[in-house]
Protein backbone atom coordinates (compact mmCIF):
# COMPACT_ATOMS: atom_id res chain seq x y z
CA UNK A 1 0.00 0.00 0.00
CA UNK A 2 1.50 3.36 -1.02
CA UNK A 3 2.52 5.75 1.72
CA UNK A 4 2.58 9.54 1.69
CA UNK A 5 5.97 11.07 2.12
CA UNK A 6 6.85 14.74 2.37
CA UNK A 7 9.91 15.93 0.51
CA UNK A 8 10.65 18.42 3.29
CA UNK A 9 10.72 15.58 5.81
CA UNK A 10 13.28 13.75 3.73
CA UNK A 11 15.31 16.94 3.81
CA UNK A 12 14.86 17.24 7.57
CA UNK A 13 16.20 13.74 7.93
CA UNK A 14 19.17 14.70 5.83
CA UNK A 15 19.99 17.97 7.49
CA UNK A 16 23.41 16.73 8.45
CA UNK A 17 24.31 17.11 4.78
CA UNK A 18 23.69 20.83 4.82
CA UNK A 19 24.73 22.21 8.14
CA UNK A 20 28.21 23.51 8.70
CA UNK A 21 29.57 23.43 12.18
CA UNK A 22 29.50 26.78 13.90
CA UNK A 23 32.91 28.32 13.71
CA UNK A 24 32.91 29.33 17.33
CA UNK A 25 31.22 27.92 20.38
CA UNK A 26 29.20 30.21 22.55
CA UNK A 27 30.22 29.00 26.00
CA UNK A 28 27.60 31.06 27.83
CA UNK A 29 24.84 29.67 25.64
CA UNK A 30 26.07 26.13 26.18
CA UNK A 31 26.08 26.64 29.96
CA UNK A 32 22.56 28.01 29.84
CA UNK A 33 21.38 25.09 27.69
CA UNK A 34 22.86 22.62 30.17
CA UNK A 35 21.14 24.41 33.05
CA UNK A 36 17.76 24.20 31.33
CA UNK A 37 18.24 20.53 30.39
CA UNK A 38 19.38 19.33 33.80
CA UNK A 39 16.73 21.33 35.61
CA UNK A 40 14.06 19.72 33.47
CA UNK A 41 15.35 16.16 33.74
CA UNK A 42 15.58 16.66 37.50
CA UNK A 43 11.85 17.42 37.53
CA UNK A 44 11.15 14.45 35.28
CA UNK A 45 13.12 12.10 37.56
CA UNK A 46 11.13 13.24 40.61
CA UNK A 47 7.84 12.63 38.77
CA UNK A 48 8.99 9.19 37.61
CA UNK A 49 10.09 8.18 41.11
CA UNK A 50 6.69 9.13 42.46
CA UNK A 51 4.99 6.99 39.80
CA UNK A 52 7.36 4.09 40.49
CA UNK A 53 6.62 4.31 44.22
CA UNK A 54 2.91 4.11 43.49
CA UNK A 55 3.41 1.13 41.21
CA UNK A 56 5.44 -0.70 43.86
CA UNK A 57 2.84 0.09 46.50
CA UNK A 58 0.05 -1.24 44.30
CA UNK A 59 1.99 -4.44 43.63
CA UNK A 60 2.71 -4.87 47.33
CA UNK A 61 -0.98 -4.58 48.09
CA UNK A 62 -1.46 -7.75 46.10
CA UNK A 63 -2.92 -6.19 43.02
CA UNK A 64 -1.48 -7.77 39.93
CA UNK A 65 1.48 -10.09 40.26
CA UNK A 66 0.99 -12.80 37.73
CA UNK A 67 3.28 -15.77 37.76
CA UNK A 68 3.55 -17.62 34.58
CA UNK A 69 5.30 -20.93 34.56
CA UNK A 70 6.98 -21.48 31.25
CA UNK A 71 9.70 -23.70 29.99
CA UNK A 72 12.31 -21.57 28.34
CA UNK A 73 14.35 -22.88 25.49
CA UNK A 74 17.92 -23.01 26.74
CA UNK A 75 20.11 -20.50 24.91
CA UNK A 76 23.61 -21.20 23.69
CA UNK A 77 25.03 -19.40 26.70
CA UNK A 78 23.60 -18.40 30.01
CA UNK A 79 23.93 -18.05 33.72
CA UNK A 80 23.49 -21.14 35.85
CA UNK A 81 20.98 -20.32 38.55
CA UNK A 82 17.83 -22.38 39.08
CA UNK A 83 18.35 -24.08 35.77
CA UNK A 84 21.37 -26.07 36.91
CA UNK A 85 19.69 -29.42 36.32
CA UNK A 86 18.63 -28.51 32.82
CA UNK A 87 22.09 -27.17 31.99
CA UNK A 88 23.87 -30.24 33.30
CA UNK A 89 21.50 -32.58 31.47
CA UNK A 90 22.47 -30.99 28.23
CA UNK A 91 26.21 -30.92 28.59
CA UNK A 92 26.94 -33.99 26.56
CA UNK A 93 27.78 -32.22 23.37
CA UNK A 94 24.27 -31.86 22.03
CA UNK A 95 23.66 -28.65 20.22
CA UNK A 96 20.41 -27.31 21.53
CA UNK A 97 19.55 -25.45 18.44
CA UNK A 98 21.24 -24.27 15.35
CA UNK A 99 19.56 -21.91 12.98
CA UNK A 100 20.35 -22.33 9.36
CA UNK A 101 19.46 -20.05 6.56
CA UNK A 102 20.18 -21.38 3.06
CA UNK A 103 23.16 -23.35 4.29
CA UNK A 104 24.74 -20.48 6.23
CA UNK A 105 24.81 -20.45 10.02
CA UNK A 106 22.89 -17.48 11.31
CA UNK A 107 24.54 -15.43 14.04
CA UNK A 108 22.72 -14.23 17.09
CA UNK A 109 24.37 -11.16 18.47
CA UNK A 110 23.19 -9.64 21.73
CA UNK A 111 25.82 -6.96 22.08
CA UNK A 112 26.69 -3.77 20.28
CA UNK A 113 30.21 -3.68 21.66
CA UNK A 114 31.51 -5.30 18.51
CA UNK A 115 31.10 -3.21 15.39
CA UNK A 116 29.15 -4.98 12.60
CA UNK A 117 32.16 -5.06 10.27
CA UNK A 118 34.09 -7.00 12.94
CA UNK A 119 31.54 -9.76 13.39
CA UNK A 120 33.06 -11.66 10.48
CA UNK A 121 36.57 -12.87 9.80
CA UNK A 122 37.33 -13.91 6.21
CA UNK A 123 33.61 -14.03 5.61
CA UNK A 124 32.94 -16.41 8.50
CA UNK A 125 31.02 -15.33 11.63
CA UNK A 126 33.37 -15.03 14.61
CA UNK A 127 30.81 -16.81 16.81
CA UNK A 128 27.38 -18.33 16.47
CA UNK A 129 26.03 -16.58 19.49
CA UNK A 130 27.40 -13.54 21.33
CA UNK A 131 25.99 -12.18 24.54
CA UNK A 132 27.04 -9.89 27.37
CA UNK A 133 27.54 -10.86 30.97
CA UNK A 134 27.73 -8.36 33.80
CA UNK A 135 30.26 -9.03 36.51
CA UNK A 136 29.40 -8.27 40.11
CA UNK A 137 30.70 -5.21 41.94
CA UNK A 138 33.46 -7.32 43.50
CA UNK A 139 34.48 -8.67 40.09
CA UNK A 140 32.79 -12.07 40.45
CA UNK A 141 31.75 -13.64 37.18
CA UNK A 142 28.41 -15.45 37.49
CA UNK A 143 28.66 -19.19 37.02
CA UNK A 144 27.75 -19.73 33.38
CA UNK A 145 27.87 -22.11 30.46
CA UNK A 146 28.90 -21.68 26.85
CA UNK A 147 27.99 -24.01 24.03
CA UNK A 148 30.21 -24.64 21.05
CA UNK A 149 30.92 -21.48 19.04
CA UNK A 150 29.50 -19.15 21.69
CA UNK A 151 31.15 -15.98 22.93
CA UNK A 152 30.40 -14.08 26.10
CA UNK A 153 31.54 -10.49 26.59
CA UNK A 154 32.15 -9.51 30.20
CA UNK A 155 31.20 -6.02 31.34
CA UNK A 156 31.27 -4.23 34.67
CA UNK A 157 28.31 -4.39 37.07
CA UNK A 158 26.70 -1.46 35.25
CA UNK A 159 26.89 -3.18 31.91
CA UNK A 160 29.64 -0.81 30.78
CA UNK A 161 33.10 -1.45 29.44
CA UNK A 162 36.09 -0.64 31.61
CA UNK A 163 38.11 2.51 31.16
CA UNK A 164 41.65 1.25 30.98
CA UNK A 165 44.99 2.98 30.62
CA UNK A 166 48.18 1.73 29.02
CA UNK A 167 49.93 -0.49 31.53
CA UNK A 168 46.75 -1.62 33.27
CA UNK A 169 45.87 -5.31 33.26
CA UNK A 170 42.84 -7.56 33.48
CA UNK A 171 43.31 -10.69 35.55
CA UNK A 172 40.71 -13.38 35.03
CA UNK A 173 40.67 -16.35 37.40
CA UNK A 174 38.21 -19.17 36.76
CA UNK A 175 37.65 -22.89 36.74
CA UNK A 176 36.37 -24.95 33.85
CA UNK A 177 34.10 -27.55 35.38
CA UNK A 178 33.94 -29.83 32.34
CA UNK A 179 36.40 -32.17 30.78
CA UNK A 180 36.36 -34.70 28.01
CA UNK A 181 36.55 -38.49 28.36
CA UNK A 182 40.33 -38.30 28.74
CA UNK A 183 39.94 -35.82 31.58
CA UNK A 184 41.24 -32.96 29.48
CA UNK A 185 39.68 -29.50 29.85
CA UNK A 186 37.85 -27.96 26.89
CA UNK A 187 39.39 -25.24 24.73
CA UNK A 188 38.56 -21.59 25.17
CA UNK A 189 39.71 -18.46 23.44
CA UNK A 190 40.10 -15.38 25.59
CA UNK A 191 40.82 -11.79 24.69
CA UNK A 192 39.38 -8.32 24.79
CA UNK A 193 37.07 -6.05 22.87
CA UNK A 194 38.56 -2.66 22.14
CA UNK A 195 37.02 0.04 20.02
CA UNK A 196 34.48 -2.38 18.57
CA UNK A 197 37.15 -4.85 17.56
CA UNK A 198 37.83 -8.35 18.86
CA UNK A 199 41.46 -8.81 19.84
CA UNK A 200 42.21 -12.45 20.51
CA UNK A 201 44.96 -13.00 22.96
CA UNK A 202 45.15 -16.58 24.17
CA UNK A 203 43.80 -20.06 23.63
CA UNK A 204 43.59 -22.12 26.80
CA UNK A 205 42.61 -25.63 27.75
CA UNK A 206 43.26 -25.93 31.46
CA UNK A 207 40.86 -26.63 34.25
CA UNK A 208 42.18 -23.91 36.56
CA UNK A 209 43.06 -20.67 34.91
CA UNK A 210 44.61 -17.34 35.75
CA UNK A 211 44.77 -15.22 32.63
CA UNK A 212 46.51 -11.86 32.49
CA UNK A 213 45.60 -9.47 29.70
CA UNK A 214 47.92 -6.47 29.35
CA UNK A 215 46.42 -3.28 28.04
CA UNK A 216 48.51 -1.77 25.23
CA UNK A 217 46.50 1.39 24.67
CA UNK A 218 44.14 3.52 26.78
CA UNK A 219 40.45 3.24 26.06
CA UNK A 220 37.26 1.33 26.80
CA UNK A 221 37.64 -2.45 27.06
CA UNK A 222 35.48 -5.51 27.49
CA UNK A 223 36.79 -9.04 28.06
CA UNK A 224 35.53 -12.01 26.08
CA UNK A 225 35.56 -15.77 26.34
CA UNK A 226 34.75 -18.00 23.40
CA UNK A 227 34.14 -21.72 23.43
CA UNK A 228 36.11 -23.15 20.50
CA UNK A 229 35.64 -26.78 21.49
CA UNK A 230 32.77 -28.97 20.32
CA UNK A 231 31.23 -29.46 23.75
CA UNK A 232 29.72 -27.24 26.36
CA UNK A 233 31.98 -25.42 28.80
CA UNK A 234 30.94 -24.36 32.28
CA UNK A 235 32.77 -21.46 33.91
CA UNK A 236 32.73 -21.25 37.68
CA UNK A 237 34.43 -19.41 40.52
CA UNK A 238 35.30 -16.63 38.10
CA UNK A 239 36.78 -13.34 39.28
CA UNK A 240 37.78 -10.52 36.96
CA UNK A 241 40.17 -8.05 38.52
CA UNK A 242 41.38 -4.78 37.11
CA UNK A 243 44.92 -3.89 38.11
CA UNK A 244 46.05 -0.37 37.49
CA UNK A 245 49.54 0.14 36.21
CA UNK A 246 52.00 2.46 37.91
Amino acid sequence: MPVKFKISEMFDNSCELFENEMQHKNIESEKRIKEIVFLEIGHTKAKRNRRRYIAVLVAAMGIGGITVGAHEVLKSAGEIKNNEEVVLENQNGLALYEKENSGAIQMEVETDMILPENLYKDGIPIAKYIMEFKTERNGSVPECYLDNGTMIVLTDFDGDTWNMKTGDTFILDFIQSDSDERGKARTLEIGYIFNGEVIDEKVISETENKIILDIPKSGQYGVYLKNVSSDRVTISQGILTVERGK
Partner: protein
Amino acid sequence: MKPNSIFIRIDKKQADGIWTMDEIILMRKLKKKDERALGKIIDLYSAYITCIVWELLHKKGTKEDIEEVVADTFISLWLTAERINYKQYSSIKSYLAMIARNKAKDWLRSYRGGILELNDDILLIDGDVERLILQKEQQLIIGRTLEKLKEKDKAIFIMYYYRYKKIEEIAEILKMNPQTVKTRLRRGREILKRILLEEGYDASEI
Protein backbone atom coordinates in the same frame (compact mmCIF):
# COMPACT_ATOMS: atom_id res chain seq x y z
CA MET B 1 27.56 31.43 2.75
CA LYS B 2 26.30 32.61 -0.62
CA PRO B 3 22.88 31.17 -1.49
CA ASN B 4 24.05 29.57 -4.71
CA SER B 5 27.08 27.88 -3.24
CA ILE B 6 25.93 24.91 -1.32
CA PHE B 7 28.22 22.71 0.69
CA ILE B 8 27.19 19.08 0.61
CA ARG B 9 28.95 16.48 2.66
CA ILE B 10 28.33 12.81 2.06
CA ASP B 11 31.13 10.88 3.63
CA LYS B 12 31.42 7.14 3.58
CA LYS B 13 30.57 6.84 7.26
CA GLN B 14 27.23 8.51 6.69
CA ALA B 15 26.59 6.57 3.50
CA ASP B 16 27.11 3.31 5.36
CA GLY B 17 25.46 4.59 8.52
CA ILE B 18 28.13 3.11 10.72
CA TRP B 19 28.24 4.33 14.28
CA THR B 20 31.62 4.79 15.93
CA MET B 21 32.31 2.92 19.14
CA ASP B 22 32.36 6.18 21.11
CA GLU B 23 28.86 6.97 19.91
CA ILE B 24 27.62 3.48 20.74
CA ILE B 25 29.09 3.73 24.24
CA LEU B 26 27.50 7.15 24.75
CA MET B 27 24.09 5.86 23.65
CA ARG B 28 24.36 2.83 25.92
CA LYS B 29 25.08 5.12 28.88
CA LEU B 30 22.27 7.42 27.87
CA LYS B 31 19.83 4.51 27.75
CA LYS B 32 20.82 3.80 31.34
CA LYS B 33 20.10 7.44 32.23
CA ASP B 34 23.72 8.38 32.77
CA GLU B 35 23.66 12.17 33.15
CA ARG B 36 27.36 12.46 32.42
CA ALA B 37 26.74 10.91 29.01
CA LEU B 38 24.04 13.51 28.37
CA GLY B 39 26.44 16.26 29.45
CA LYS B 40 29.05 14.93 27.06
CA ILE B 41 26.54 14.85 24.19
CA ILE B 42 25.54 18.46 24.92
CA ASP B 43 29.22 19.46 24.89
CA LEU B 44 29.72 17.73 21.56
CA TYR B 45 26.63 18.87 19.72
CA SER B 46 25.07 21.98 21.26
CA ALA B 47 26.91 24.30 18.85
CA TYR B 48 25.76 22.24 15.88
CA ILE B 49 22.14 22.03 17.08
CA THR B 50 22.12 25.75 17.87
CA CYS B 51 23.19 26.34 14.26
CA ILE B 52 20.24 24.31 12.97
CA VAL B 53 17.68 25.96 15.25
CA TRP B 54 19.07 29.44 14.62
CA GLU B 55 18.64 28.91 10.89
CA LEU B 56 14.88 28.50 11.34
CA LEU B 57 14.21 30.78 14.30
CA HIS B 58 16.54 33.76 14.13
CA LYS B 59 14.08 35.99 12.29
CA LYS B 60 11.20 35.42 14.68
CA GLY B 61 12.67 34.19 17.94
CA THR B 62 14.99 35.67 20.55
CA LYS B 63 18.29 34.24 21.74
CA GLU B 64 16.43 32.77 24.73
CA ASP B 65 13.85 31.14 22.45
CA ILE B 66 16.64 29.50 20.47
CA GLU B 67 18.30 28.26 23.67
CA GLU B 68 14.97 26.83 24.86
CA VAL B 69 14.42 24.94 21.64
CA VAL B 70 17.99 23.61 21.68
CA ALA B 71 17.54 22.50 25.29
CA ASP B 72 14.24 20.86 24.33
CA THR B 73 16.09 18.86 21.70
CA PHE B 74 18.46 17.35 24.26
CA ILE B 75 15.65 16.78 26.74
CA SER B 76 13.78 14.90 24.02
CA LEU B 77 16.87 12.75 23.40
CA TRP B 78 17.08 11.99 27.13
CA LEU B 79 13.42 11.05 27.39
CA THR B 80 13.41 8.83 24.30
CA ALA B 81 16.89 7.26 24.65
CA GLU B 82 15.59 3.93 25.97
CA ARG B 83 13.20 3.56 23.06
CA ILE B 84 15.49 4.65 20.24
CA ASN B 85 16.51 2.00 17.81
CA TYR B 86 19.52 4.09 17.04
CA LYS B 87 20.69 1.87 14.23
CA GLN B 88 17.93 3.38 12.12
CA TYR B 89 19.88 6.64 12.18
CA SER B 90 23.32 7.31 10.81
CA SER B 91 24.62 8.88 14.04
CA ILE B 92 23.58 10.60 17.30
CA LYS B 93 24.23 13.86 15.50
CA SER B 94 21.80 13.10 12.68
CA TYR B 95 19.12 11.94 15.12
CA LEU B 96 19.54 15.14 17.16
CA ALA B 97 19.43 17.25 14.02
CA MET B 98 16.14 15.68 13.03
CA ILE B 99 14.64 16.36 16.47
CA ALA B 100 15.96 19.94 16.40
CA ARG B 101 14.34 20.66 13.05
CA ASN B 102 11.00 19.33 14.27
CA LYS B 103 11.18 21.28 17.54
CA ALA B 104 12.02 24.46 15.65
CA LYS B 105 9.10 23.94 13.29
CA ASP B 106 6.78 23.29 16.26
CA TRP B 107 7.96 26.55 17.79
CA LEU B 108 7.27 28.42 14.57
CA ARG B 109 3.79 26.91 14.41
CA SER B 110 2.97 28.10 17.90
CA TYR B 111 4.55 31.53 17.40
CA ARG B 112 1.89 34.07 18.21
CA GLY B 113 0.58 35.82 15.13
CA GLY B 114 2.67 33.71 12.82
CA ILE B 115 1.39 31.12 10.45
CA LEU B 116 3.92 28.60 9.41
CA GLU B 117 3.69 27.85 5.75
CA LEU B 118 6.01 25.10 4.93
CA ASN B 119 6.75 24.56 1.31
CA ASP B 120 6.20 20.97 0.54
CA ASP B 121 5.20 18.40 -1.95
CA ILE B 122 3.91 15.00 -1.12
CA LEU B 123 5.10 11.88 -2.81
CA LEU B 124 3.13 8.71 -2.90
CA ILE B 125 5.64 5.95 -2.43
CA ASP B 126 5.12 2.32 -3.12
CA GLY B 127 7.62 -0.38 -2.42
CA ASP B 128 9.45 -1.55 0.63
CA VAL B 129 8.14 1.28 2.76
CA GLU B 130 9.54 0.03 6.01
CA ARG B 131 13.00 0.38 4.53
CA LEU B 132 12.32 3.96 3.64
CA ILE B 133 11.79 4.82 7.25
CA LEU B 134 15.52 4.55 7.86
CA GLN B 135 16.94 8.04 8.15
CA LYS B 136 20.26 7.02 6.71
CA GLU B 137 18.47 5.71 3.64
CA GLN B 138 16.77 9.06 3.15
CA GLN B 139 20.09 10.84 3.48
CA LEU B 140 21.54 8.73 0.70
CA ILE B 141 18.58 9.37 -1.59
CA ILE B 142 18.63 13.13 -1.00
CA GLY B 143 22.41 13.21 -1.35
CA ARG B 144 22.30 11.38 -4.67
CA THR B 145 19.49 13.62 -5.91
CA LEU B 146 21.45 16.76 -5.13
CA GLU B 147 24.60 15.37 -6.73
CA LYS B 148 22.74 14.97 -10.01
CA LEU B 149 21.42 18.55 -10.00
CA LYS B 150 23.27 21.51 -11.46
CA GLU B 151 24.48 24.06 -8.92
CA LYS B 152 21.61 26.49 -9.36
CA ASP B 153 18.97 23.76 -9.37
CA LYS B 154 20.53 22.32 -6.22
CA ALA B 155 20.43 25.72 -4.55
CA ILE B 156 16.77 26.19 -5.48
CA PHE B 157 15.83 22.72 -4.24
CA ILE B 158 17.49 23.27 -0.87
CA MET B 159 16.21 26.80 -0.42
CA TYR B 160 12.65 25.66 -1.10
CA TYR B 161 12.39 22.35 0.76
CA TYR B 162 14.93 22.87 3.50
CA ARG B 163 15.14 26.58 4.18
CA TYR B 164 11.45 27.12 3.41
CA LYS B 165 11.96 30.11 1.16
CA LYS B 166 9.09 31.14 -1.10
CA ILE B 167 9.35 30.99 -4.89
CA GLU B 168 9.43 34.77 -5.10
CA GLU B 169 12.19 35.01 -2.47
CA ILE B 170 14.31 32.46 -4.30
CA ALA B 171 13.74 34.24 -7.60
CA GLU B 172 14.88 37.50 -6.03
CA ILE B 173 17.98 36.01 -4.41
CA LEU B 174 19.07 34.23 -7.58
CA LYS B 175 17.86 36.97 -9.90
CA MET B 176 15.64 34.60 -11.82
CA ASN B 177 12.12 34.55 -13.11
CA PRO B 178 9.70 32.86 -10.62
CA GLN B 179 8.43 30.60 -13.40
CA THR B 180 11.98 29.45 -14.03
CA VAL B 181 12.34 28.63 -10.34
CA LYS B 182 9.18 26.50 -10.49
CA THR B 183 10.44 24.69 -13.57
CA ARG B 184 13.75 23.90 -11.91
CA LEU B 185 12.00 22.64 -8.80
CA ARG B 186 9.98 20.30 -10.96
CA ARG B 187 13.22 19.10 -12.55
CA GLY B 188 14.59 18.33 -9.11
CA ARG B 189 11.50 16.36 -8.19
CA GLU B 190 11.80 14.31 -11.40
CA ILE B 191 15.34 13.36 -10.47
CA LEU B 192 14.27 12.48 -6.93
CA LYS B 193 11.54 10.22 -8.27
CA ARG B 194 14.00 8.57 -10.65
CA ILE B 195 16.42 7.85 -7.80
CA LEU B 196 13.62 6.42 -5.68
CA LEU B 197 12.77 4.14 -8.61
CA GLU B 198 16.40 3.03 -8.81
CA GLU B 199 16.25 2.21 -5.12
CA GLY B 200 13.20 0.03 -5.67
CA TYR B 201 10.45 2.48 -4.84
CA ASP B 202 7.77 3.73 -7.15
CA ALA B 203 6.98 7.37 -6.50
CA SER B 204 4.40 9.75 -7.87
CA GLU B 205 3.24 13.20 -6.82
CA ILE B 206 -0.15 13.97 -5.39
